[in-house]
């Protein structure tokens, strides 16, 4: 294993991160040039504005961290939208000191159910998590009567999501904490090795003695947990929970993970890439909203950027054997 290939693999994984980071700089320069010409100011370079954008982006970042773990074992979690919304709704409904634990527990339970369905029932994750998403939506519609719940977020949720310490949004600290945990899991624990092994070839990991089913359940549980956390924070940020609050997080989180160089088929990718991918998407969004781009143009640019980035570094190999 000490032979040089390790070096090569590293550069193959680092390339997307470097290119995506360069693209972020391009976005910043382009956006600044635009604002300079039109308004004579450069909000994109002001730390305060950037922090505010990153604060909004931290919810996406937390979701993407969990999504990445699931994608690394070559599964996907489509239940994120309503896991997030359910966590937010139940957290605000319970209120008091138990609000945040309840929100996290909702995410964790949904994640474990997802994991059991995928690992033990062997239903494709694409369809099982889709079903769970529908069930969660059904439960929440029945619970709230289809309206935005009237309950408000607790002070602690507000504090974590919307307030600042030393001028830095607290949500960023939460995102940082989640990031550190994920990096430690992926880089420094046996679980992280198992995750990459399963993503590369589950049968091989199984034959090597890994309890692949348990690892799969743990991965989905972690993904559910991050979705729950994002839900709690988002409810704190917007003071209350609302229907469909998670819908805007599913596809961007997958896009962020993939733009960051994680292979959608699993087994390869670094967390730093996901981080860069999230920042890229957040900044792209904020530049487009500064430019007052209508939704139509946004979607087209959004799609074009994903294709462009993947054409540069995400191309698969031709199957020739």
């Amino acid at each position: 294993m000490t032979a040089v290939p390790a070096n090569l693999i590293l550069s193959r994984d680092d390339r997307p991160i470097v290119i995506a980071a360069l693209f972020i700089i391009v976005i910043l320069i382009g956006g600044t040039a635009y604002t300079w010409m039109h308004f004579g100011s450069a909000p994109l370079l002001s730390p305060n504005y950037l922090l505010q954008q990153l604060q909004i982006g931290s919810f996406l970042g937390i979701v993407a961290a969990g999504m990445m773990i699931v994608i690394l074992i070559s599964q996907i979690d489509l239940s994120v939208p309503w896991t997030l919304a359910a966590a937010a709704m139940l957290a605000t409904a319970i209120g008091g000191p138990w609000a945040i634990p309840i929100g996290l527990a909702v995410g964790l339970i949904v994640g474990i159910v997802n994991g059991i369905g995928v690992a033990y029932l062997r239903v494709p994750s694409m369809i099982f998590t889709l079903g769970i998403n529908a069930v969660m939506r059904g439960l929440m519609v029945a619970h709230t009567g289809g309206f935005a719940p009237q309950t408000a977020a607790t002070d602690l949720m507000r504090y974590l999501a919307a307030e600042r310490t030393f001028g830095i949004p607290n949500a960023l600290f939460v995102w940082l904490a989640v990031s550190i945990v994920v990096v430690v899991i992926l880089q420094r624990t046996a679980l992280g090795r198992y995750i990459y092994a399963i993503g590369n070839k589950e049968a091989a990991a199984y034959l090597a003695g890994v309890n692949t089913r348990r690892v799969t359940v743990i991965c989905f549980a972690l993904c559910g947990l991050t979705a729950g956390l994002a839900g709690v924070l988002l409810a704190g940020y917007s003071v209350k929970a609302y229907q469909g609050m998670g819908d805007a997080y599913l596809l961007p989180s997958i896009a962020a993970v993939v733009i960051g160089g994680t292979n959608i088929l699993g087994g390869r990718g670094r967390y730093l890439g996901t981080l860069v991918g999230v920042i890229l998407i957040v900044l792209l969004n904020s530049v487009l909203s500064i430019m007052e781009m209508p939704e139509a143009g946004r979607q087209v640019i959004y799609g074009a950027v994903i294709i462009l980035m993947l054409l540069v570094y995400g191309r698969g190999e031709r199957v020739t054997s």
Partner: protein
Amino acid sequence: MSSAAEVPAPARFRFEDSSLAIKLRQNVGLVTAIALFCVIYLLYHVAHPKGFSSAVLVQNGDEIFTLAMVAMAQTVPVLAAGLDLSVGALMTMVGCFASYLLSGAPEGTPINLDLGGLHLVLATLPGGTTGLIVGMILCLVIGTLAGLLNGCVVVFGRIQPIIATLATGAIYIGIALFLRPQPGGKIDDDLNWAMTNSLGDFASTVHIFNDGAAPWFAPLAWIPVPFVLIILIAALVWVPFRRSVTGRAVYAVGSAEGAAYMSGLPIERAKIAAFTLGGFFAGCGGLFLAIQTSSGNADLPQAGAYTLNSIASVVIGGTSLLGGSGGAIGSIFGAMILRVISFFFRIFDIAPLLQPLFEGIILLAAVSIGALRMLRVRNTLELFR
């Protein structure tokens, strides 16, 4: 099962060896889907106060058609071990085009292109029936081209289908929003009436078969047009495709791409064809949805719901998400099963608030039935395919 099974005499007929039994074994998913559909649809008609009437059939047909088309659209890439997350967006985009092209204005429909100050009249569709037919063909061509674009991005860009179509889907929704920032537009009333009712209404609207009064036509007049269209599209497009070399290559690519390559099958052509055909089917769905609702609506949640329901329909219809087995016919039944389940909510008077919950539980239960195969697995390694 014949009793001959216990007495293995080579000369005697054994059902298990007959070609019918082999066909049944190969299409367990399809047969199950058809059986399930027949049972629940029969139950539905029995429970419905106006069951077994043409009016109910017509209503069901209208509600089923679009999902059935989108499910077919999803099936073809899935068979090639891909996944098309853009079907809903593609369908929505074609619907928005249709809301411009099919207004049926007698003076003709100009096709304009407004880009900032630039105003171009590209062409003018003639008014009347000719214009409507040209407009519908244009819509289907747009859908097919969008499918072709998907295929090209996947094959020549070598980007994973799931993520490539996620991106192209965003582009299609963008175009749809560009066309219809607000829901609107208009579809010719006669076209709407002709396509969304029974064959009898169709004949009297387009003035064929003596306005539908021809004696030989009377026994057929009750059949809803959408069902006829589904059968026509399946028989004239899907079945020939499945039997072509390209169609077989799609299955081969889905079950073992490496082996298909080594066997000299046209892999790239198969993949492009799979996505293109998907685009055509989704285009049919979008066109019908626009005709049915008589408007174009760039509805993002609706597009997402159709994409996700199409995946569910494909799975319920017995097609493996891993590719290589199943077929579009099964997906049609999968889509019909999904829709009929929601029809039940109406007649059994289930509180609307509980409906999404039931839909989800039924979907979960349906896909978890597949877990029964776990009981037959002798070697755990068989699970990791």
